[in-house]
């Protein structure tokens, strides 16, 4: 009986190879176009430069995408993160704006706790619809995607709440240890998610549920709890991103905060090599994916093109990355290259493995 050995993955076969190539190409193209792009300087003890900016600006997207990665790994999807971003930012800003001393650290912390609590509730709502009632994830989270925007506007009464709170602003634009605080926060959350999934058995259990739900059930995994949990984690990540985005501008706009971030986050996850069908997930890939998206946006800005036009490039990156990763496309490509490749194994159609003679 032959064993189907995995083709030895070379460097080009590594799952991060193509995403990293794209990222490096983008950075290189920027450097050629604008040599100062790679420069990093120290001003007032803080690091400045285009690369640092990209890191800082990509922090919220990284946060949202991390939560999204876990959701997608279970075979789900969370369309509501943009709304959760808006709601959490709005709640935090509303609370701070109502307090007499907006600069008080205690006030800000209370605001964060309240807003995070609201976000967790929203996440639990999503999780309940998916795991308990059994609604398709894309549909279940669509509800909150639509209604959440309205909730955010309800919180802000349709206006932009402006606050003047230096501790809150710190989250978005502050510095710590020469680095922008946002980068450190993103790093910390990344670390936390990595520890949560890889130091416990959560990661493996998520991958098992997403990879083969029935086999997981028969192995005694309680898939419901896991699914509920990932939607809560996703909402929590979105909440932190919401704080960051509103702190950046010291104001909350229920209408536009976090608009389309769910799409960017899904993109980052897919670019990073996690399959939308669920199963194995790659946090590092997701971060590279988020950096690609932000670099793309920043470069388009730098070239004085309308930021919306960057969507054109984004569309192309999506299609290229998805095509490269699509088995059907690879199969076609291989067939064209010659007969060396074996025919696809029709195991899916077979009832079970056919007995060996």
């Amino acid at each position, binding site marked *: 009986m032959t064993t189907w050995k995995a083709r030895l993955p070379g460097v080009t076969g590594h799952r991060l190879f193509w995403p990293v190539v794209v990222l490096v190409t983008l950075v290189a193209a920027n450097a050629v176009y604008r040599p100062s792009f790679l420069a990093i300087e120290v001003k007032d003890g803080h690091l400045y430069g285009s690369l640092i900016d990209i890191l800082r600006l990509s922090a919220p997207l990284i946060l949202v995408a991390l939560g999204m990665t876990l959701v997608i790994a279970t075979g789900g*999807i969370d369309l509501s993160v943009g709304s959760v971003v808006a709601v959490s930012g709005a709640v935090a800003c509303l609370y701070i704006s109502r307090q007499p001393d907006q600069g008080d650290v205690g006030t800000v912390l209370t605001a964060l706790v309240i807003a995070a609590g609201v976000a967790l509730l929203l996440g639990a709502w999503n999780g309940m619809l998916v795991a308990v009632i059994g609604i398709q994830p894309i549909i279940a989270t669509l*509800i909150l995607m*639509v*209604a959440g925007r309205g909730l955010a506007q309800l919180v802000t009464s*349709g206006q932009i709440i402006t606050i003047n709170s230096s501790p809150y602003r710190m989250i978005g634009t502050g510095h710590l240890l020469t680095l922008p605080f946002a980068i450190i926060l993103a790093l910390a959350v990344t670390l936390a998610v990595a520890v949560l999934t890889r130091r416990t058995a959560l990661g493996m259990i998520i991958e098992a549920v997403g990879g083969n739900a029935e086999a997981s059930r028969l192995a005694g995994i309680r898939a419901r709890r896991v699914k509920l949990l990932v939607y809560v984690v996703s909402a929590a990540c979105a909440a932190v991103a919401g704080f960051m985005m509103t702190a950046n501008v010291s104001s909350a706009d*229920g209408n536009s905060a976090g608009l389309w971030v769910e799409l960017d986050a899904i993109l980052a996850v897919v670019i990073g090599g996690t399959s939308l069908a669920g199963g194995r997930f790659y946090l590092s890939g997701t971060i590279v994916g988020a950096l690609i998206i932000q670099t793309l946006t920043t470069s388009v800005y730098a070239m004085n093109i309308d930021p*919306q036009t960057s969507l054109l490039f984004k569309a*192309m990156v999506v299609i290229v990355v998805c095509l490269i990763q699509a088995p059907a*496309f690879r199969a076609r490509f291989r067939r064209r290259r010659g007969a060396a490749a074996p025919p696809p194994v029709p195991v899916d159609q077979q009832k079970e493995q056919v007995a060996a003679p």
Partner: protein
Amino acid sequence: MSTTQLTPRLGRPTWWRLPRRQVPVLVSLGLLLLMYGIGVSQYRAFSNIQVIFNVFIDNGFLLVVAIGMTFVILTGGIDLSVGSVVAMTAMVSAALLREGLPSALVLLIALLIGPTLGFVMGCVIHFFDIQPFIVTLAGMFFARGLCTWISSVSVPISDGFWTAAAQERIRIGDNFVTVSVLITVAVVALAAYTLAYTRLGRNVYAIGGNPQSALLMGLPVGRTRIAVYTISGLCSAIGGILLSFYTLSGAPLIAVGMELDAIAAVVIGGTLLTGGAGYVLGTVLGVLVLGVIQTLITFDGTLNSWWTKIVIGGLLFAFILLQRLIAIRKK
């Protein structure tokens, strides 16, 4: 062997199955009547027939787009690109008219772009087996990007044909409708006919019911799947033209989020998001429900626009729950 004693036991559908196919649509209809009733009882002006016509006038483009979405959702797919395609069509028309091209040619070009993009997306979905969600997401980005690439600011339309189409009032008794409403009605009729009376339409239902079966039954699954995305593209293009009649301009950021409204209308109209069941009429009801909510909120004056979103979200939840309950009872 006597079959008479066997068949009744085997073959009898119980009585309550009969209307169950239409339950979601009936619920939508009831909801619409209820809301209209509330409107009429609260505001005297609401009973004016023109209010209903205005709902059509203000939501005609959404209805056309939602019809296209109905085709896609009936096959079990989704099309996120519709809002962007609407904007792109309006933008291309405005830009080409500004360049001085004849209106007939502009109309033709504008109506071709959407279906072409839809066709390409359908091909990618079918041949490379990539999820519709991702492919149409890319399509959404592409169309929106193209919009702003053409112009980052709103482009007004002053073409004679366009302004005539925008301003023409067709009188019905004491009330009036616009050209757009007539086009919308024509699209609705054509779509309803296609779904109910053509092989293409029936194949759409079959694929939504069970794609593997459809394939084994020898139906042209690939061709149908590509066709629905093309149809959705065409509907979005028509929607874009109607929107440009409505606003007499092309703007880069118009119709943002319209895909959500369209999906919501389809779901509220009783179409199963998993595909295979639903009617064009339901989608019409769904759009009317959305339109009447907006009208109610406008009439109220004290309620703010965000309540629209919250109410739509609530309705979505209710209808999805209803669908889920029906699916569970089926088992």
